[in-house]
Each structure stands twice: as C-alpha cells, then as structure tokens.
C-alpha cells in the first residue's frame, strides 16, 4: 500500500514494517549480511499480524470495515469481472453515484451486479455521497433487478454503506418508500440473488439491496441495525460508548453466522482486505462462482420458497402456546 493510513491497533505493525524495510535497504547496499536478521523480523511481523488479527474486538473490526483503503465495489469489479458495463439512472429522477450497477461477466457467466460505492479521495467521497444512497439509487437498483428478472440473469449485490442518506431531498422523494419497495420486490424476484457485505452493512440502507438467497460477509465487515455510534448516542446518551455498543449489537461476520442470519463468512488475507486486494478479490470471486453453481440448477419455484421461508423464520420470541 503506497499510502498506508493506519488504524490505532495497526500502529505496531507499521513500525515493524518500517524497520524491516530499513533493514532490507541496508542489506541490498551490501555492507553487512543481514539475511538472518531480516528473516527473524519477517517472522516476528507475521506472528504479530496473526496475533492482532485473531483477537480483534467488534469495535476494531468496525474500524477495518470502514478502513479508507478497503476495497470498494468498483475495485472488486475491476479485479473479478471479465467485462462490466455500468448502467445508469432510475428513469424517474436521476442517477445516484452512491449505487452502481450493470451487466457483468464473471467466470464466463453474465450477471447483474449492483453495489454501494464509496469514494476514496475527498472529491470522489463527496461525489459518491460517502456511499449513502438517495431514493433514486434504490430505484435504479430496482430497475436493474427487474431487468435481470426479465432477462433471467442472477443478481449479485455488494453492500457497503453507512446507511441510506438522511437528507431533505431524500425524505421528499420517499427514502422510506424506496427501501420498502425494494424489500418487498426482492422477496419475490424470480432470479437467484447473492449478497456480499464487503464493508459496512448500515441498516435499512444496506438491507434495501440485501434481500437474498445467499448472504455472505467478508471476515472483517459489519452488518447492523444501527451504527455503534448512533446506538450509543441513543441508549447510553453518549456517543463515545460506541465501542461497547459495537460489542452488544453483535455486528461481526462470525457472530451473524452463528445467529443464522448469513450463510457464509469469506476469509480475508492476513491484515485484512486492504493489505492484499488481489487475494481478497480472488476469495470473493470464488465465493460468487461457488454460490452461482449451487443456485443456478435449482428451479426458481424452489428458490423462492426457500427465500420466503428463510425470512419468515427470522426472529426469536417466546410463544407459550407452542
């Protein structure tokens, strides 16, 4: 990574990496043989990485999920698709850059690919509205999903948003209605749907493209009904309690797999996806292809029945009469 923007818990790694670089540099200059020292340090770095990344708490995972260098939808598209033609606009109001979508080819199959899109540099961040869609973004997604249904293309969605945009225009144009409509339509859409949470799964704004037959999460992504900060502000009346809220909300991939909400956790390379885009992309591609192989041979009637049943049964309560 050229510019390594580091998180707090990554700092010791960054220091070690710098030291290693220095050592390698003096080694190539050829004055002393530092081979064994380099080897030792490399091993130490690897061990430290393993140690840090195996014991991350939910708040640290939240930081990784939002890491500025984390791959976004179009980064993955570039690495996993043989072809991609982006399609624009909702045909009603506008084109929302916070959601991208289009026809893509992956492993020789053509799919409809839709995802939230964040920006990296300041200008692009603003252009993408920090990955927070307006209603027209959800309506564009809906239009593309209807197209996929008619043309019998499976749908793959990439989820990565802090949430649907809370703004005046968004409310005026029916943010609630746009999300609700997607939820109800996706529950019965007659093509297989695969969703991958690649970064932040922010509440209804994430779910609005996430009603799927198979939901997968990247190892260090999060999926939550409310942001830890928002939750802390409401329940603790103190936004700084986000760290505790993150833990209480159970937002990590492993926890959501245990709770039966998602079907699979996609393993990330050591040091998380931003340390090796190619490796992360390979895992994502494989997960998509395996899922397509699983879903495509099944009749759509059976898929719809299973999809309905899955959502019908989510919820834990006490029913004394049963």
């Amino acid at each position: 990574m050229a510019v390594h923007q580091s998180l707090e818990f990554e700092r010791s790694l960054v220091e070690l990496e710098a030291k290693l670089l220095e050592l390698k540099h003096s080694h190539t200059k050829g004055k002393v043989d530092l081979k064994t020292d380099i080897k030792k340090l490399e091993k130490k770095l690897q061990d430290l990485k393993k140690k840090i990344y195996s014991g991350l708490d939910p708040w640290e995972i939240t930081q990784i999920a939002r890491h500025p260098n984390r791959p976004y939808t179009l980064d993955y598209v570039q690495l996993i698709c043989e072809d991609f033609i982006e399609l624009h606009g909702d045909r009603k109001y506008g084109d929302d850059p916070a959601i991208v979508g289009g026809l893509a080819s992956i492993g020789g199959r053509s799919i409809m690919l839709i995802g939230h899109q964040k920006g990296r540099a300041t200008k692009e961040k603003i252009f993408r509205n920090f990955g927070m869609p307006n209603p027209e973004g959800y309506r564009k997604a809906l239009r593309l999903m209807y197209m996929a249904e008619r043309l019998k293309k499976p749908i793959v969605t990439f989820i990565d948003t802090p949430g649907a945009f809370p703004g005046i225009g968004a409310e005026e144009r029916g943010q609630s209605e746009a999300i609700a409509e997607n939820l109800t339509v996706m529950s019965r859409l007659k093509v297989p749907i695969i969703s991958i949470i690649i970064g932040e799964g922010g509440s209804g704004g994430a779910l609005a493209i996430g009603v799927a037959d198979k939901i997968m999460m990247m190892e260090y992504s999060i999926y939550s009904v409310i942001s830890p900060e928002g939750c802390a502000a409401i329940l603790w009346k103190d936004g700084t309690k986000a760290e505790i809220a993150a833990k209480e909300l159970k937002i990590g991939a492993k926890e959501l797999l245990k709770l039966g909400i998602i079907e699979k956790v996609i393993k990330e390379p050591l040091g998380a996806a931003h340390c090796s885009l190619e490796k992360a992309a390979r895992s994502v591609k494989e997960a998509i292809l395996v899922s397509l192989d699983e879903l495509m041979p099944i009749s759509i009637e059976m898929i719809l029945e299973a999809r309905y049943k899955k959502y019908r049964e989510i919820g834990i309560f006490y029913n004394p009469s049963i």
Partner: protein
Amino acid sequence: MLKKETGHTEKVEKARKVPEGLWVKCNNCGEIIYRKEMERNLYVCLKCNHHHRINAYNRISITLDEGTFREYDAEIEPVDPLGFKDIKGYKEKINESQKVLSVKDAVVCGEGLINGKKVMICAFEFAFMGGSMGSVVGEKITRLFERALKGRRPVMIFSCSGGARMQEGIFSLMQMAKTSAVIAKFKDSERPFISVLTDPTTGGVSASFAMLGDVIIAEPRALIGFAGPRVIEQTIRQNLPDNFQKSEYLLEHGMIDLIVERKNMREILSRLLDLFKPDHIKRDIEPATYRHRTTDASQKK
C-alpha cells in the same frame, strides 16, 4: 362512530394500569382539558385540534364496532436474543414496560368489524419501548397478513413507532424484510392493505410495511419519515423547512394518499372497505364466445 364511548373507557383502564387524574394538559397548546371531554373527543385537543397519541386498545376500540374485537397472539412475548445490555438490560426494560402496560410487546393484533365488515387490524403501542419493531412485532404482523391471506380479508395497520428495536440487533433489522415479504404474498389476495400512519412513524417501520399500503392514510400533523429530523439536521447542517416530515408535507410530495382527522377515520375506512369490496360478477365468458358475440352484434347492425 361516537356511539362506543362506554366501551373504550373500560379499555383505557385495561391498557394503562396506573390511574390518571381528572384533567389533562394538551402537549401542543398547553390547554388544560377535562379528561372525560378529551376522551369524548378521541384524544384530539378541543382547542388546537392536536391529535394526541393513543394506546393500542383505545385505537382499536374507536375504530371497530363495539364488542367485535377478537385478539390474536396476545401471549407472544419478547426474549433477549443477544443478551443486550446498555445502562439497563433489555430484559429489565421489557419487564418494566410489561408491568405498566397490559401488552406483552408493542403491537396488538386481531380481527373485528367496521360497520359489519370484517377486517384484520393491528395497532401499535407507542408506550412499549417507543413502539419499536423487534421479533414479536414482526411475527405478529406476519401472522396477521397470513391469516388475512387465508381468510381473504382486508388488513389495516395503525403505525406509531420510532423504528427498529436496537436491543434485538440484526433480528430487528430483518423484521423489515420479513414483513415486506409477507405483504408481497398478501398482494396476491385481491384484498387491500390500508396503512394508517400516526405520530410518529419513522425508521425501520416506515421503511418497510408502513409504506407498502395500497392506500396510505395519515393523521394530521403526524411526523413521518425515514431519518429523524435531528439526525438530518446534524448531517446536513441546515435548518429544516417548515412542516418538514409532517403529514401535510408528505401529501404535497406525493408520498401518501390522504390525511384524515381522527373523528372521520372510521367513516373513511368503512367507505374504502365498501369500495374495495370484491364484486361477484362471474367472469365466465370465454374469449371465443366473446368474439362470437361481438361478431353477432355487428352483423345485426
């Protein structure tokens, strides 16, 4: 519709176990009003027409024909699926709410009659954790639509909710998908879903079933929206327009069908049910005969 006063007074007592004073203060204009007077006016301020929040049983009793309500699934109770603890534990909060209110969670569902017409009805209890939707609310609404689908009945839901119940984490988020999925199925039934939005209807409730009504009605000046006004103000750092996210504003922007005052609600619902009534004309004319008939008709000319 005002004939049922005696019926609902009793239900008020049922819903709120704590006795209340003789006088109430309008929380909009501050006027002190005799409680009985306020009840007779369906909890709408006699001075400023402010529609006060009413509890679930009360809502049902002012909507249905007297004595026709049959409750469903009253016994379903919330649990604490995540072991969630903020300043208090979630369990503790549930117990506290259940102690003060005579409901187990934030909705009351059942069936009854409106001017003799059978409907499936659901009303939110805002006093139960802000009317928030967790597993119990999602399940009861889903069952209501399933019953309506089976019995071919119209559904009406009176929403009054701040959104999803955070303490149930992802389970509460998924109730949005669950309720929206059952509505997709219900819409095969040729029966209407009438969604009534009352103050407030926001977050995960507005972004799921509440906005999926065939007809969407709001009470006057109800707060309706996806994000809360304070969140919006903090995000965009601008003052919000007058009336923003109020019923009147939504009507103007094409987001709801009607604004109906509480005193007229029952009548409007009844008329909608009549107009939506399935007609029983038997469609037995085959395309071939139809063509034949039209040819006959033209030949006669």
